[in-house]
């Protein structure tokens, strides 16, 4: 249910204060230590950030997509590593249960996910199955009332912290494509699970990603999401639709931050006897960034509203993610350029955002995969008409 304007404004106001006063001053420390202080995580829990999208019935805020993107946009005003702490609980780590889970599964997991007591991770990608996720090999073999899971999941966000994995595995080996896959809810302390060391990565230090290995992991059949076999891939795609809009809104928020930083710098920095903001070539970069940010923001708002109205937004979400994540890449590049040498120096934080945003064009579907989704949708629609 959408919030009334006053309540939404209060929500945004409170998150904005938290971002400005609490998180922004820690950006450089978190990047250096590759760690978000425990007390900040506790404060995020107290703020209710883990439960943004979990329905009110299960102790969350139950934000509509339109409200969620506004909150996420504000969260984009600081390093995305902070959002990653609760990002999986808001998105890919909880949505399978919210969208397709049984009532029992919802009651069992969601209230503790809303408080942050349980951290959820989403295990789809494998060493040999990235963009082509439907080709995944992780096996789930029936053994009495249980399944035995075997295989490796790659680059799993929050795996080192996770208490619950949503694991996509093949329950029907005869079916090589998307139709033989089921989604399992697996407690992280189940025997046979091991989590690899956190990868060292290009950006977003403080957010952790690791491989998860499954060796004869015994999972009750009742833990299949929605208690339905072989429909897991559909669940994954529904989860990603929402996730893609979330990442798009985050990209808009970070673009706003980078534009604000660039504008401030350009108005202060003087060369040739005047602020560099007076130069038309700098103005062109500022204007292009502002315009593209605005376009992305309108796209995300429209797609979110239509998703809330019940429309299938798969292709719209893909368009948003394609445009917004590429947009923030260009905005970050211009931000470095406007800052000149300072843009390349760590102290100014601009190069950090430049590295941080690079990820958005890769995970939850690369830009090429979004293009594929959009074009296939176009072709499908056109064939239906003819």
């Amino acid at each position, binding site marked *: 249910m959408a919030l009334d304007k*006053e*309540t939404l*404004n*209060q*929500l945004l*106001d*409170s*998150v904005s*204060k*938290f971002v400005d006063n*609490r998180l922004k001053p820690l950006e450089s420390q978190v990047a250096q230590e590759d760690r978000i202080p425990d007390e900040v995580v506790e*404060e995020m829990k*107290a*703020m*209710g*950030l883990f*439960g*943004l999208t979990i329905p*009110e019935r299960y102790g969350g*805020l139950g934000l509509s997509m339109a409200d969620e993107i506004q909150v996420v946009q504000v969260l984009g005003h600081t390093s995305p590593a902070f959002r990653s702490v609760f990002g999986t609980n808001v998105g890919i780590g909880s949505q399978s249960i919210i969208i397709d889970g049984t009532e029992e599964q919802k009651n069992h997991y969601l209230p503790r996910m809303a408080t942050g007591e349980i951290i959820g991770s989403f295990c789809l990608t494998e060493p040999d199955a990235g963009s082509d996720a439907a080709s995944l090999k992780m096996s789930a073999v029936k053994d009495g009332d249980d399944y035995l899971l075997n295989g490796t999941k790659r680059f799993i966000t929050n795996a080192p912290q996770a208490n619950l994995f949503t694991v996509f595995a093949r329950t029907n080996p005869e079916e090589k494509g998307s139709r033989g896959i089921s989604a399992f809810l697996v407690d992280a302390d189940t025997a046979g699970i091991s989590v690899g060391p956190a990868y060292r990565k290009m950006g977003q230090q403080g957010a952790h990603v690791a491989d998860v290995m499954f060796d004869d992991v015994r999972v009750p059949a009742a833990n299949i999401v929605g208690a339905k076999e072989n429909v897991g891939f559909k669940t994954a795609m529904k989860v990603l639709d929402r996730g893609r809009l979330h990442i798009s809104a985050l990209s808009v928020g970070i673009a706003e931050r980078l534009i604000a930083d660039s504008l401030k710098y350009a108005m202060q920095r003087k060369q040739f006897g005047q602020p560099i903001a007076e130069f038309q070539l700098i103005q062109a970069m500022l204007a292009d960034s502002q315009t593209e940010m605005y376009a992305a923001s309108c796209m995300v708002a429209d797609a979110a509203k239509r998703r809330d109205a019940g429309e299938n937004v798969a292709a719209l979400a893909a368009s948003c993610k394609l445009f917004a994540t590429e947009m923030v890449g260009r905005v970050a590049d211009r931000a470095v350029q406007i800052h000149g040498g300072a843009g390349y120096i760590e102290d100014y934080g601009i190069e950090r955002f430049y590295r941080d945003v690079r990820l958005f064009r890769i995970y939850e579907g690369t830009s090429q995969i979004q293009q594929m989704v959009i074009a296939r949708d176009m072709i499908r629609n056109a064939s239906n008409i003819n």
Partner: protein
Amino acid sequence: MKILVTAKRVVDANVNVRVLSDNSGVDINNVKMAVNPFDEIAIEEAVRIREAGNAEEVVVASIGPTQCKEQIRTALALGADRGIFVETDADIQPLAVAKLLKALVDKENPDLIILGKQAIDGDNIQTGQMLAALAGLPQATFASEILLADGEATVTREIDGGMETITVKTPAVITADLRLNEPRYASLPNIMKAKKKSIDTYTPEELGVDVTPRLTTLKVEPPSDRQAGVIVADVEELVDKLKNEAKVI
């Protein structure tokens, strides 16, 4: 114990206000409004006292146009239990506010009243003091620490040149200074819950208070622009300039 706190609607501290071209005041059209930061400290203190088990109820009052309900909601989200809104579009000056609050004190009989030491718009620093006088209650202003025990409040006050500790009998009026506490962020679930808390509305007439302004604003002007600085050669020149040009030492 019941605590009454205030939540004045003021321009957000981060907004740069502009003086209106006719010099009648500052432009507050379309600027972000917020709870007066010192009131936020007062609210936080009251909520902490209740959380520590030393009070049962925190009631928050705001006076002004209908939008002031937003500030009451914020206070409710920060932990106040119930709101009182006095609705008026009149230009409310400190004496009128103090009289209205006195009427609310008579209605509610709080054991403690905590206000901000000042509001960041008018900077009058008068309301708490006037309220104490009108209500015939002891006052402890500029509090940086409040300890409650046995019907008394021991209050550390920030005064020129140091700290002063005084004890007042409750009920009493306390005004909050900056260092009293650091207000929490309103949690998102509490913002949602605040929607369900009750707010009673009164008008000044219903409270029997005449709010007619006693003061007239003649002119509002922005502070003069800062002059460009000069670089001095050495300490002697600096001291000389401070003594003879600026005449500050």
